[in-house]
């Protein structure tokens, strides 16, 4: 006991306590990442479909949650019954006491649809042009086989709608603007007007042809229909083309499930969102995030490197350097929302408004640049991440040995030649570190984007096949904003939760991978020079 008090007196207990705080911090980080990984990765695994026999009927569904008995409710199970169009809700709580019997019917299917949420039930028959192709057990293989064909129609329709019809409507809009421009310049005359009108007619004709083609395709895609039945005998007939995936969850086995898992994962990263962002993929958000970060990088690297060169190589220690340093630190500490406000006021309203007045008067009052867009968001983030690049570059410049510079200068090189040929190549790894850290920071910021151009659902990507290919004025989707929007603004937030978890996991992975990469680079750099950042 004595030794314990001695131990207490000397404060070892405090050492332990402070150790505990560290343990807590580390645990929180690890726990958070682990939690997201488990929660996120689990959602795409096709769960078994339970048949739950209740006193008042049978329900089929996936068990999503279970709560023990408490003051507020008895022990109960949350079942995802799906079939929103039949039951009006996706989930149902069932009291455990009411459950008479559970089983796993082999013919239960989990069917993902293009709209209206998933369907849980069995396949009754498959028909083509009203003629029954197969019934019962034999229908499923045929449906699975024909599914990709039916989806191909759907893809074709979508591609026509997007590219060809999109191009036509772009041309139409351009004609309207041309006419308006002529009017504004006072050059409008009957001949020019007639020309524009002729072209418009021509486009309208092409539109009609396109519509006819689309209609034919739609009819073809509707030819194959399936009859489905829910557990309690409600039946539904729907075109096969409306179905994304048929998962016979109870009978495909482990490998089959793994296949479904991978296909869902692929859909998640490669497809467009459906059903108000609660289903489908998040490809536009990934694309928007990446493109925004790239534009930001193009702007931030030259600026950051210039500023760092100034601080390290050109400025003499004095009030200027002190002010710049304080400015850099301040820039790093300014709340991101303030950058957003600045971006909105300066880039969007002032600069964008100026561009609109000068270059696009014919589009008035519809704004072109005087509204949030990917360019403004990227510039705002470039400003926000500037200090990251400056600090990293400075550190890297400081790490270039003095002897190398002196050697270069002694050979007669000018200061710039020394910098360009000796110092900057030597510091390139550090600059890269700064860039990666800036990218990680930029990818994770959301608040400034909300004011400068992010949207919940962008009709088209900022990069596509129509001239001029890169559309810097377009609004875009972003992973971080997707999390906020789907998680907090979505009307059906319970059904959307898996999407949010997966999106959060993806964003976290992007940011973590970038950071770990940067950290390794930096550690290598520091080991070479043994510097410290304080």
């Amino acid at each position, binding site marked *: 006991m004595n030794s314990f008090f001695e131990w207490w007196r000397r404060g070892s207990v405090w*050492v*332990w306590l402070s150790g505990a705080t560290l343990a807590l911090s580390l645990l929180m980080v690890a726990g958070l990442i682990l939690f997201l990984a488990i929660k996120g990765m689990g959602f795409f695994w096709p769960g078994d479909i339970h048949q739950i026999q209740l006193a008042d009927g049978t329900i089929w569904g996936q068990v999503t949650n279970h709560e023990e008995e408490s003051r507020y409710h008895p022990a109960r199970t949350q079942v995802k019954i799906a079939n929103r169009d039949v039951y009006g809700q996706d989930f149902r709580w069932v009291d455990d006491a009411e459950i008479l019997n559970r089983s796993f019917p082999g013919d239960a299917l989990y069917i993902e649809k293009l709209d209206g949420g998933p369907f849980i039930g069995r396949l009754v028959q498959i028909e083509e042009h009203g003629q029954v192709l197969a019934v019962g057990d034999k229908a499923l293989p045929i449906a699975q086989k024909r599914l990709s064909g039916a989806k191909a129609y759907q893809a074709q329709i979508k591609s026509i709608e997007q590219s060809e019809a999109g191009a036509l409507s772009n041309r139409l809009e351009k004609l309207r603007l041309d006419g308006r421009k002529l009017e504004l310049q006072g050059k409008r005359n009957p001949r020019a007007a007639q020309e524009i009108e002729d072209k418009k007619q021509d486009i309208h004709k092409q539109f009609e042809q396109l519509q006819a083609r689309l209609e034919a395709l739609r009819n073809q895609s509707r030819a194959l229909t399936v009859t489905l039945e829910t557990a309690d005998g409600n039946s539904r007939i729907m075109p096969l083309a409306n179905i994304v995936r048929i998962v016979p969850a109870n009978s495909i086995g482990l490998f089959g499930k793994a296949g479904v898992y991978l296909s869902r994962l692929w859909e998640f990263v490669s497809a467009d969102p459906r059903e108000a962002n609660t289903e489908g993929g998040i490809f536009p958000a990934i694309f928007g995030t990446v493109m925004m970060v790239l534009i930001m990088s193009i702007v931030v690297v030259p600026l950051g490197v210039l500023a760092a060169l100034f601080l390290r190589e050109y400025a003499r220690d004095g009030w200027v350097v002190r002010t710049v340093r304080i400015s850099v630190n301040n820039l790093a500490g300014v709340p991101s*929302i303030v950058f957003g406000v600045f971006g909105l*006021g300066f880039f969007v309203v002032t600069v964008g408004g100026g561009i609109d007045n000068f270059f696009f008067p014919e589009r008035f009052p519809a704004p072109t640049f005087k509204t949030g867009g990917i360019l403004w968001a990227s510039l705002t983030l470039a400003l926000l991440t*500037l200090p990251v690049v400056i600090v990293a570059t400075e550190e890297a410049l400081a790490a270039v040995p003095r002897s190398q510079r002196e050697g270069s200068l002694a050979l007669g090189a000018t200061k710039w030649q020394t910098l360009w040929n000796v110092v900057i190549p030597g510091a390139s790894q550090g600059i890269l570190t700064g860039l990666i850290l800036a990218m990680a920071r930029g990818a994770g910021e959301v608040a400034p984007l909300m004011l400068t151009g992010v949207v919940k659902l962008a009709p088209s990507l900022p990069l596509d096949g129509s001239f001029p290919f890169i559309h810097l004025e377009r609004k875009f989707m972003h992973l971080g904003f997707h999390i906020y929007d789907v998680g907090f603004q979505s009307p059906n937030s319970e059904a959307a939760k898996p999407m949010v978890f997966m999106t959060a996991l993806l964003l976290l992975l992007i940011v973590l991978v970038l950071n770990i990469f940067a950290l390794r680079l930096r550690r290598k750099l520091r080991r070479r020079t043994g510097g410290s950042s304080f």
Partner: protein
Amino acid sequence: MGNDPHRGSARVKRLDRFMAWLISAGGVLIIAAVLGIMIFITKEALPLFRNAKIKDLPTLAVPASDAVFLDESGKYAATFSLGGGFRCWPLEQQAGLADIDASGQPPLPWKNIFTNGANGRVALQGFDGKAYAAEVQWRQSDQGMEARVEWIGPFATTASDSILAARAIRGGGLGNRHYLKIAALDIGSIRVGEAYPNSPIEWTTWQLPLNVTPTAAKWSGNGSVLFVGTNEGELMAYLPDSGEALRSDFGEPVTALGFALGQNSLLVGGEKGKLAAYQFLLSEGRAELQRFHDFKPIGGGVRGFMESPRDKRFLAWSDSDFAVSHLTSEARLIHASAEITSAAAMSPRGDSIIATGQPTLRWHVQAYHPEVSWGLFWKKIHYEGYSRPEYVWQSGGASDDIEPKLSFVPLLAGTIKGTLYAMIFALPIAILAALYTSQFASPKFRETIKPTVEIMAALPSVVLGFLAGLVLAPLLEQWIIALIAVVPVAVAILLLLMLAWSKVPKSFKDKYGNGREALWLVPVVFLSLAVSAWIAPWIENAFFSGDYRNWLYQGQGIMYNQRNSIVVGFAMGFAVIPIIFSISEDAFTAVPKSLASASMACGASPWQTAWRVILPTASPGVFSAVMVGLGRAIGETMIVLMATGNTPIMDWGPFSGMRTLSANIAVEIPEAPHQGTLYRVLFFTALLLFSLTFILNTAAELIRQSLRKRYESM
């Protein structure tokens, strides 16, 4: 670089000079960027405080009238006068003549005209013993604006009635029947009644108190209260339905009554220019006539009021002066001298004022953001419908006649509250963990700690906010008792563990213990969590009668909000810990080793050295770490946006939410029209945030710079 050094040397030198210039420009650009952000945001916010300007316009040949209304553009005036009836006037030369449709106009001359504010509605009393109501409507026509009057009536009354106040009420229910609320003065009493077409009025008599002479009267907007000002300096409110009369001392003889937009606030003007606003409050079934705003008096006896049709400004005039004041902020926007003898009006856009008379005067007014004043942001303001002055943020209303409530105080309080809770959680953890890492952790362990903490710093705040709002908040609601219990439980388990540890042989300690204590404590954290979760239901039953939320609400009057300060504190603390950790860890590590060695040589234990030598020496560094952490917490947006309910309340309790300055910007700016008042006010709050973090960061950087110098000299 060319092979021939002489050929390219001039070019090389030029390039060298150019790059030197370019790079210096880049450095200056950084200063410019910071300054530029500040200047730009200030520039956007400043017009809020610009004073209104007034300019005389040429006088007009419009005759004096008894009621005047302006159209949306302020270029046309519609007048009613006893002798001339209804007329419409273009006020600017380029404006075409306005058409009037005089059909249905009651026979002239009229005996009396009663205006009830800028809504374009008047009530008339004719000499024929009938009363009418009229409503002006503006329509765009080819020549310009067209004024139409909808005549309503006649309503039964008698020519001999000396009517004190009349108001046309659009009756609800079937047929949308109109009626007139009429108050007529008799000797010692006032008769009130409702006039319908073709049926006699049923009068109710209100016996006036002795020695009271009514001088002005107005019906309230819905016709339920009659306000009467007296020569004896009193304001009275009479409720015909209950027969109740309320009295309030005004201070000088009342000469004019009027309403602010929305007809909820009664404006009262006195003989010596005194101006005040009253509201009629019904609280808990009790009626109250409350004087809630006093304005700077104008010169001379107040002759009339007219409100702006768009906001809470109003015009008050006397024989010699007129003034435009704002109801909410009590600020006087314009004060000028002019003789206004008859009716006056403000245009809906608030950019012109007209006063008919001999001659008719007209002014151009440039008011930038009349509803804003410095006091509005920081002081308690008495809003319409509130029983006392309060700090409220409620930027938008359903219609123009709801006052925008723009107090920064609840937002600032929310910001401070969020920061405070985050700091309570983050500070001890971050500083102690940093001290441990720099002083006690083994070098190899340190190598893994630092990157982990840097990764912690890199976690996107939107992910933290999402986890806090959607995962932590519901969990916490279930396990809050366990959370409170975890601190004592953890300390108890820790003590037990250490008791055991002191019995462990030294060789084992040296091999596995020193410098790795944190790893040993991982199970302790888990164990304490498990134990407190296990005892939580028992605690809840024993102390909170089985349901803590019920206990809080019934016993303490506290509502438990799921997204509350504890959740925010956790999430934001999580975001701040790595920042405070790294800066203070650097500060601890940078303390010269000689100091620690000296302390140890004198016999101090490692902890004593760390606590008494390292910590005080590095305290400026820790302080600067706290400053930077504070700056981050103050400006954090996504976490608070997602982890709180975003209600701008003033409540410091841990179980309620908040709205911070930053979240407020994110919530409101997408809806704010560019360059409008709300937009500029939000820019002003952004400037506030910027200044707060600017001060914190500059202080932190200055401290760090001086500390660096001190260490160098050690």
